[in-house]
């Protein structure tokens, strides 16, 4: 069992634990609501949400195709899984770039925001549908971390496709790609954990929509 398999197994056990925790706390409901709200035509009307969901979908494909082989067989992704991985990659790249453009401003840190520990997590009691309330300090950190890791994930693989690096360099790039992808997954799940207060916000938003 190679080192990456061990580390990714531990990482994914943590991810699964976090997802179970999120589910129990109702934090996944927001995501489910987002997906359920998508209708034909939504992509034109609500491009932000659509890009987000498309990005999540492609990210899940990348996670499944990239990590399942290494977790269960110890081998790198090959075969049809690799083709799917390669197909999902540009979709994810485009989505993450758009998400970056659209969400960067709402994830700006305010002066002194992180001085208080409680600023890391969105508080459930704050029910107003304001962007600044949705994005807690923790979410902001994980958002920027995800952007940085996405750059590493993408460039490491693209660089390996060019005749620039020899065998050792290729191995380093592959490791970089794998580890950054693992931490990207962890960062995204952490973002969900920090954003657990999203649930009531979205519920309120849904009620507002109904009223409208």
């Amino acid at each position, binding site marked *: 069992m190679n080192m990456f398999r061990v580390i990714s197994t531990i990482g994914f056990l943590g991810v699964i634990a976090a997802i179970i925790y999120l589910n129990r706390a109702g934090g996944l409901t927001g995501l489910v609501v987002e997906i359920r709200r998508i209708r034909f035509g939504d992509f034109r009307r609500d491009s932000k949400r659509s890009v987000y969901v498309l990005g999540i979908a492609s990210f899940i494909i990348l996670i499944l195709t990239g990590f399942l082989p290494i977790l269960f067989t110890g081998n*790198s992704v*090959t*075969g*049809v899984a*690799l*083709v799917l991985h*390669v*197909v999902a*990659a*540009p979709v994810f*790249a*485009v989505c*993450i*770039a758009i998400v*970056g*453009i659209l969400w*960067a401003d709402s994830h*700006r*840190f305010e*002066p002194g925001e992180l001085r208080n520990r409680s600023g890391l997590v969105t508080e459930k009691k704050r029910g107003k549908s304001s962007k600044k309330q949705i994005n807690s300090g923790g979410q902001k950190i994980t958002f*920027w971390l995800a*952007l*940085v890791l*996405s*750059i590493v994930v*993408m*460039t490491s*693989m*693209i660089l*390996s*496709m*060019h*005749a*620039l*690096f*020899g*065998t050792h360099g*290729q*191995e380093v790039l*592959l490791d970089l790609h794998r580890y950054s992808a693992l931490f990207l997954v962890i960062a995204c799940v952490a973002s969900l954990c920090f954003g657990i207060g999203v649930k009531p916000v979205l519920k309120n938003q849904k009620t507002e929509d109904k009223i409208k």
Partner: protein
Amino acid sequence: MTTTRLIVLIFISTSICTIQVPAQETKLGDVSDGNRSTPVHLIDLYDEEGSLIRPGDEPMLPFSTRQTCLPCHDYHKISSGWHFNAANPDVPPGRRGQPWILADRTTATQLPLSYRNWTGAYQPDDLGITPLQFIQRFGRHMPGGSIGDDEERQAPENVMRWWVSGKLEVNCLSCHDAEQGHDQAEFDTQIRKQNFRWSASATSGFATVRGSAKDMPDNYSIYGSLLDDGRKIPPSVAYDKTRFNTQGKVLFNIVRQVPNERCYFCHSTKIITDESERWEFDEDVHLVAGMKCVDCHRNGLDHDMVRGYEGEAEEYDKPGAATLTCKGCHLGEDLSESPSAGRLGAPIPKHVGIPPVHFRKLTCTSCHSGPWPEENAYNIKTSRAHALGTHRVNRSDEALPHILAPVFVEQEDGKIAPHKMFWPAFWVQVEGGAVKPLDPEIVRPVAANFVERDTLGTGDWPDLTEQKIVAIMRGLVEGDSTLTPAYIAGGKLYSMTESGELSAEDHPVAEPYSWAFAHDVRPARQSLGIRSCGDCHASDSPFYFAKIGIDTPVASQNGTTKIMVDFQDTSSFYARLFGLSFLFRPALKIIVLAASAVLIMILFIYLLRGFSLFLQSNRD
């Protein structure tokens, strides 16, 4: 009484203690004194009885390599080496190698044979082929020894013949004779005449052999016999007397480093192309650089050659062999405590732009060895399969056996490697589902009635229609009613139904026989992938989609093909799909690079903004 017993006991114990086990005798030539020059081999000749040979002897006898070399070399140890130990069941067979191929046009046969226990190859004994018959057929490219030098293996009915022909001793000259006049083709000539004990002398360049032991009766004696047929010439040898010095010794040009030409006699490959001009082909890049075959394929006194494949070192517990593989020389091997890469000046490859998965899935030879793969696998001829280099070679490009290369086959270790391959074709006896090959000699008399003669001498398949196959099967049953004959060819088993019709089914016994090859190694700039990934990953690349003809004499199956990917653990759908993905790869690179650039810009902008805010807050 007690005193007597004590004396006897002391005597016995003293005797036991003084009995010395004779130490293993180290021969003069088997241990180096450290001097790297080649010793001069000015030596006496001995016949097989160990008697000195001198010019003017009557009768003049051929020299025996065993007796001539024995004073200085451990013949017994040497004769246990790789080239001589095929018939020793205690020797692990190692990676599947080239078998001897029993090719016979009349019976439409190309059958893999080997005394080594290689999957897919048959033991000659199982077909009733005696060592004498085997040597007569294949001894042309054997260096002697093995079954030719082992009395215990000889069939009882051939014992008298062995007295006449003599043993086929290890012919040291086959490899170590650097004399220009050495003629290995003469070895074949003598083998065909059953002149086994004369064969080494005949190749030496200073002896001429006449006559044929095959024509001699079983009671023939080399020391003189009366022959009832004056037309038959008994085997005899005549030496060039000028080669004997005043002491009666002969100078052999023996070298430790075997010249490439000696290896080539048995290990040549001819690629059959439309423009098969010799000058158009290059040799292995290592040889062109001045190396010798034996620089990598080394051996010690035991002559256990390093074959050079990955895993051999572990399989035979020869750690040194790991440093002599492609990887061992060019990259270094993992077992060694000291740096082992770069042996013999081997450059360390950069493999720029090649994802590491290739090194787990492919052998080095996949990209670097053999002819550049084309739309169809090449037909090739090899020394051992086609008797190349001998006087009886059939120069026709269609001559059996039909071998294809390169075929990229997945090996047992999971790596894809270039292979040479042929489709076995032979007659079998079916017994309760088990399939056992029939000796072609049993089939020949029947088949000869139905197969047209090879008037052009091409040596190609006969035109074998389904009617002819049925007729041959009926003929075999008529000759022996206990037989349930069937025919294997082109991946199928042909058998006769109860209604007398021919049925064909895929059968594992009919699977093609393939063995990995490593030479000729092409220069790095001609290796697969040098132009682009498309060398292998295009949707029509030969690496996956080259056609492999299903070679068969059965007329109805002629022209059918498989593709390369059929011999790999990959589906053709995936190979094509993956190949197609390379069409979009430039777009993928642009999209992902653009996305990365956007993200970097966002990070940069917000970092700057954050920094300016930080400065501003500090100012406030």
